[in-house]
């Protein structure tokens, strides 16, 4: 029986956060793919409140919410730490992780929007990217906290990979690399890490899947 199990979906950025954390620490786990349109009884039992993935189950005990899971993983398996040791540096890292977490909704906001709503969503995306450019990636660092990735980079990963897919799905270019040189460098550095590069959902597959879903959703919206 596997000691560590992870319930996820193949396209979920939240699930990938946990996958990378487990792999960074060299923890073996059993992965269970969930169909979000038809959730398993086991998932509903482990996460009755939110009924969402990811859920990490460690020795039979469930942990829900990706950021809570990442902190748990970091505390149980301290090798390759995901957060700084110094309390102040850790507080700053947690601030940026919360900032990223509070912005992930921009993915579905843009996905679901058309017309005026879409313009508003794009504006919010650009504001977020500006904060990343002006406040987070200062000091010429390769990654958010220095030369190695940690939980902050993992939290912003939706910008590195999922945003590109979203742009393709909605047919808009939101991220212009020349306007955000630091973010652009960070994305390249992040996606060059072998562990990340080898563990990303296929962009074309996600794009096709999302385009179809979006067409159906927009059609039903106008009816």
């Amino acid at each position, binding site marked *: 029986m596997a000691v560590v199990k992870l319930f996820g979906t193949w396209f979920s950025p939240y699930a990938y956060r946990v996958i990378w954390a487990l792999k960074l620490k060299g923890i073996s786990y059993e992965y269970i793919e969930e169909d979000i349109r038809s959730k398993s009884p086991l998932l509903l039992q482990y996460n009755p409140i939110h009924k969402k993935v990811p859920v990490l189950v460690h020795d039979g005990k469930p942990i829900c*919410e990706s*950021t*809570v899971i990442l902190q*748990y993983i970091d*505390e*149980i398996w301290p090798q390759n730490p995901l957060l700084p040791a110094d309390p102040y540096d850790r*507080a700053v890292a947690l601030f940026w992780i919360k900032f990223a977490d509070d912005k992930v909704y921009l993915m579905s906001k843009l996905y679901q929007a058309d017309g005026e709503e879409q313009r508003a969503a794009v504006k919010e995306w650009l504001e977020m990217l500006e904060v990343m450019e002006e406040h987070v990636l200062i000091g010429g660092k390769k990654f958010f906290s220095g030369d190695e990735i940690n939980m902050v980079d993992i939290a912003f990963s939706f910008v590195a990979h999922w945003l590109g897919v979203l742009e393709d799905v909605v047919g808009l270019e939101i991220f212009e690399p020349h306007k955000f040189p630091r973010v652009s460098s960070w994305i390249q550095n992040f996606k060059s890490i072998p562990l990340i590069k080898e563990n990303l959902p296929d962009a074309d597959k996600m794009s096709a899947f999302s385009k179809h879903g979006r067409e159906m959703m927009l059609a039903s919206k106008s009816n």
Partner: protein
Amino acid sequence: MAEEVVLLDFWPSLFGMRSRIALAEKGIKYEYKEEDLRNKSALLLQMNPVHKKIPVLIHNGKPVCESLIQVQYIDEVWHDKAPLLPSDPYQKATGRFWADYIDKKIYDLGSRVWKTMGEEQATAKKEFIESLKLIEKELGDKPYFGGESFGYVDVAFIPFYSWFYAYEKCGNFSIEAECPKLIAWAKRCMQKESVAKSLPGQQKVYDFILQMKKHLGIE
């Protein structure tokens, strides 16, 4: 070197109250600075340029933003007294999960109870009560969310008690009738000096909410 601790805050803020309680639990001397949110100080804008919000904890000149992060930071730096987070990682994870639930669900639903009217308010009220019942279930028969001692989730949630009267008057319902165990827990927490001196009176909060409603044009 003497520790210099400043808290930029706004008296009815549920989030500010958390940090006040944590600082009081640890017996930390600090300077409380009341912010006028319609006229934010240069210090606030400098210390929290991204969100421009309170509370901001400033420790030896360095800002820590976000109330739950402040509580955790206070707990780590002043770790020799009144521990707030449990030492067991699984219990810590459980605590973080519920603090997140409080912020994502309970806070938003509570806001909708006082900010809306008619059918929208009726829906918000129903969901708000459901969310309170869920967290009451999590409390169970324990004296505190942390078990035998007052801890992280208690700090995260007890500020809401100062807003209960305002929610009840706006929504026309009784939280005690729906969740008696929660009220018993709240009264237990209020017996702690750190909590009693950090929370404003319920009538004062209600008067503030009435002013806000008038200002926002909600009658």
